[in-house]
């Protein structure tokens, strides 16, 4: 009885839904509406990578304003071989979508700037993050400057 007073009451419905969803997700895994929510769970790796985009050899900090992208197929855009498994996929998804939306339309002139898309490989250690490969090419094409 003392225990009953010490702990706040737990609604059976909330508890039931909690247990059902927990067990359902643990058993079924990635089967919408169930999921194990394992994003970012993998840890302990030392290698990483980030995307690099160059326009006429100059590295860009943003894709904003880059239009009429040509020669780069967003459907086949992938990180290069050797990219560590833990690298997040969504920056590439964003880029893929940006290219699909800002690709050169038929009838418009080809952009004058050379576009290069690549990855930079990184490694983290006690002394911090260092670059292991500065530019591993993924795709190349043309684009128009902002």
């Amino acid at each position, binding site marked *: 009885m003392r225990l009953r007073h010490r702990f706040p009451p737990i609604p059976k419905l909330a508890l*039931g839904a909690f247990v059902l969803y*927990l067990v359902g997700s*643990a058993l079924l895994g990635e089967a919408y*509406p169930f999921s*194990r929510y394992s994003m970012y769970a993998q840890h302990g790796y030392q290698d990483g990578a980030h995307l690099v985009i160059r326009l006429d050899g100059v590295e860009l900090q943003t894709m904003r304003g880059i239009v009429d992208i040509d020669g780069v197929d967003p*459907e086949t855009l992938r990180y290069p071989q050797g990219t560590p498994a833990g690298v*997040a996929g969504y920056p590439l998804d964003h880029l893929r979508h940006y290219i699909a939306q800002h690709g050169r339309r038929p009838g418009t002139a080809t952009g004058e700037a050379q576009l290069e898309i690549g990855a930079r490989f*990184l490694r983290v*250690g006690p002394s911090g*993050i260092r670059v292991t490969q500065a530019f591993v090419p993924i795709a190349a094409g043309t684009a128009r400057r902002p």
Partner: protein
Amino acid sequence: MKVTPARPSVARWVMAYGLTATWVLFTTGTIGGTIRTPWGIARLFDLSFLLTPGVWAVFSAIYFLCVFAFMRRIREALVGVLLSVSIALMATLRISETARLDTMPSLTTMLVGVLITTWTLALVATPGSMARKEQVGHEMMCGVFGAIMCLTAWSKWSTSGLQWLDGNTHALWIYERAAGPVVVFEIPMLRAFRMWLSDHPTICSFGAGYTLLVESLGFLFVVPRWRKAYAIAVAGMLIGLGVGLGFAEPGWIELPLALGFSQLASAKDTTHRAPTDPDHTAPSVR
């Protein structure tokens, strides 16, 4: 009996925002694409026609009609079913389009979809008055949200254990997202802050510890007395992740706060009174 029109509660506004955000994320990220690897029901039926702008416009019109009806509490169970099915379709199309069959469609789609489906199940399956159905729906949504948080913790504990607190890997994550040209929130000051953070793995470890602690305590959201405090703790964690990592999923901060501080039951409704069920321990509606 005089009926005063019900004013949507804060939670209902937030849920409508979540439903809208789910649609926006799907429309901007998937429409115009193609199905690469069919998943779920897309393996049985060719759903590519839904990804064309014309058909999507019709789908969207129906979807937002449902969101409006949800706000006005018109045919709640039917609207709940339509919204749940719509989000399930978006999830199916998203997974089929990205061809990532071993992962979830997106965090926002998952959270909003799971909560609205739970709510709908409660409305459909619970006998009795609408007040009772809404109470059951609210309690079940809180239970499911608590389970989601525990699942995120469990996946970290089972995959990485205490190694997940290693600040070096978090620093690398932050750097990966801040150094590339495609980042969430292209704000120079935020980018500079993230680059600074990636140079300080000890601070990253503290952030990771807080995250793992909050997620592991997901069970607290089952208990009405602890919901508000837990919702604030979750909001703090997600704001930190947004600022530090660029992790920004609409609904993840707002929905737990809405569930902790409000309910989907309307703010002003003279058609019924709250039930006097001993299991009814949720906070008052705001």
